[in-house]
């Protein structure tokens, strides 16, 4: 009987390999079987790599047979967002521009997870170049939410969230520029963590907004996410913004929140368009935290309203600059039949980039143009100073802040088409990308009205990432909820 990994945590998988209950190869096969059963409905992956997973699994089994010590993630299946370079795969960014791009090296985060013994099952679907909040802008078609296949998984790391929620892998990596880990984690009912900017190397990740991007893990429990952080974090000489980090992220998970001061921001929770079931779930979480001995305190973030505008200035400006590298010369889509360089480039970029990518590049190009720079870009960077000060001030009064992750639960495929409305689904996630702080999305059950996953977001001070995980772990213990969508059990029942 094949091994069913769809409900298993990374820690359970590792323990089972360690004590000989099953082999890493059986785990890899279990993930391959789960993908075969579920992927046709979910479409979480752009490319699957069963042979790479089996090869890594054989190495783990050989290490165990030779009596070598196994790392805590050895034998754990993982999926990488398709903006992360991994040798032996294409890295497409969900774009026609890179549809045939073969990775020539490993991103540092990929290298670290593979060195830890993770089994790479494939590259996950995403909004094109991470521009989106629903994974619908992928050149390879949308991903479906495992909890309701008619709905989006969120985005831009929608495939990474859906692969974990569906039970295909216990861990995945995503990237978060304005909420692209936390919002899909919320829509798919899994844990998603964006660490403080600088904790995890960005080397080998296709850049979107270089001062905003951060890589982080998805898992079905806070413990699994903390384990992944231990492998991911730390200085990388190839990313000059990465910081030394000698923290054991699992160390404080059982310390509880007694005596902690937890902040709530009235302006966030009273914002227009927040679904009542989201507020109800937040209030329930706050009651749990009180029950655990935390003190709930109101704090103000006076410039939070400007975060959205600052982000939608800074993001496109940095994207405009980063995406100028796609010149159809060294790599990427080249439109055939052009006699001169500029018409070749104009056509290749017009055809290679999708609509939202072109919109953002053009907005960035405009905002950085002479005369306009002083109207938007410079004020946005000044607003960033104010938002950073707001958070610093708030975290001098509280240990962590709790808010909704997303104003609403997952929407239907095709339901939100206007770009400005789409941007509003990142209302609560964006501010900490602008300020650089860490944030985690924790599932807290199904919404009372939509019966879809709802989450709360836990924010911490810069480099207070272990504290975020500690609060999340304590709160997680108050809930007895399914982490794998019912789809996996249904697929198994139908065998």
């Amino acid at each position, binding site marked *: 009987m094949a091994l069913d990994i769809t409900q298993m945590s990374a820690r359970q998988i590792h323990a089972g390999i360690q004590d000989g209950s099953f082999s890493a190869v059986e785990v890899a096969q279990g993930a391959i079987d789960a993908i075969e059963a579920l992927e046709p409905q979910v479409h979480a992956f752009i490319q699957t790599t069963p042979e790479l997973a089996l090869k890594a699994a054989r190495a783990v089994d050989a290490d165990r047979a030779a009596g070598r010590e196994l790392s805590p993630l050895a034998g754990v299946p993982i999926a990488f967002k398709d903006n992360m370079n991994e040798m032996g795969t294409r890295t497409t960014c969900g774009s026609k521009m890179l549809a045939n*791009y*073969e990775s*020539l090296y490993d991103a540092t985060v990929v290298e670290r997870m593979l060195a830890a013994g993770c089994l790479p099952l494939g590259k996950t679907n995403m909004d094109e170049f991470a521009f989106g909040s629903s994974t619908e802008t992928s050149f390879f078609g949308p991903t479906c939410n495992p909890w309701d296949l008619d709905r989006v998984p969120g985005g831009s790391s929608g495939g990474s969230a859906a692969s974990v929620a569906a039970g295909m892998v216990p861990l995945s990596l995503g990237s978060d520029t304005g909420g692209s880990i936390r919002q899909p984690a919320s829509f798919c009912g899994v844990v998603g963590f964006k660490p403080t*900017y*600088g904790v995890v190397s960005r080397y080998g990740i296709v850049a979107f907004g270089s*001062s905003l991007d951060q890589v982080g893990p998805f898992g079905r429990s806070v413990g699994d996410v903390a384990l992944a952080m231990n492998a991911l974090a730390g200085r990388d000489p190839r990313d*000059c*913004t990465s*910081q030394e980090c000698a923290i054991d992220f699992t160390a404080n998970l059982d310390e509880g929140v007694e005596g902690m001061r937890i902040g709530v921001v009235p302006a966030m929770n009273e914002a227009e368009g927040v679904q009542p079931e989201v507020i109800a779930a937040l209030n329930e979480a706050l009651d749990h935290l009180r029950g655990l001995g935390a003190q709930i305190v109101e704090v103000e973030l006076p410039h939070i309203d*400007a975060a*959205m*505008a*600052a982000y*939608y*200035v800074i993001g496109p400006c940095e994207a*405009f600059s980063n995406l*100028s590298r796609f010149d*159809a*010369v*060294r*790599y990427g889509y*080249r439109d055939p039949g*052009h*006699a*001169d*360089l*500029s018409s*070749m*480039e*104009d*056509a290749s*970029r*017009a055809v290679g*980039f999708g609509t939202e990518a*072109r*919109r953002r*590049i*053009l*907005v*960035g*190009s*405009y*905002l950085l*143009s002479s005369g306009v720079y002083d109207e*938007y870009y*410079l*004020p*946005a*960077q*000044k*607003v*960033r*100073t*104010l938002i*950073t000060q707001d958070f610093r001030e708030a975290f001098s009064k509280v240990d962590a802040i709790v808010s909704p992750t997303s104003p609403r639960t997952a929407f239907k495929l095709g339901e939100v088409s*206007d*770009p*400005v409305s789409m941007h509003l689904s990142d209302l609560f996630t964006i501010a900490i990308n602008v*300020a*650089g702080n860490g944030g985690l999305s924790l599932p807290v059950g199904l919404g009372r009205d939509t019966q879809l996953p709802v989450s709360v977001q836990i924010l911490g001070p810069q480099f207070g990432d272990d504290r975020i995980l500690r609060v999340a772990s304590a709160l997680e213990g108050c809930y007895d909820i399914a982490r794998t969508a019912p789809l996996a059990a249904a697929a198994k029942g139908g065998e």
Partner: protein
Amino acid sequence: MPLSEKDVRAIADYARIGIADEDLPQMTEDLNNMISSLDAIKEFDLEGVEPTFHPIGDLSNVLREDVVAPSLPREVALSDAAETEDGQFRVPSILGGDQ
């Protein structure tokens, strides 16, 4: 003042993105909507506030030792290119005319 179609055409030329004539009205409308949603940025009193260009504010000129380190071999670096010749990237004529 909203962007005209002519403005958008100029921005696109600068960003090296071709736009078909029939797509220009929709793109112009989208850009104007996106830009007008950013106007909140002008509503704050920013007198005397220093900009923060980066979340880790005190980083500047991070340099490594100036020693040769391994990098991609030439044939690997060329392997994703649409067209190569004699170990180099090949492009159409830059100045126009015959190559």
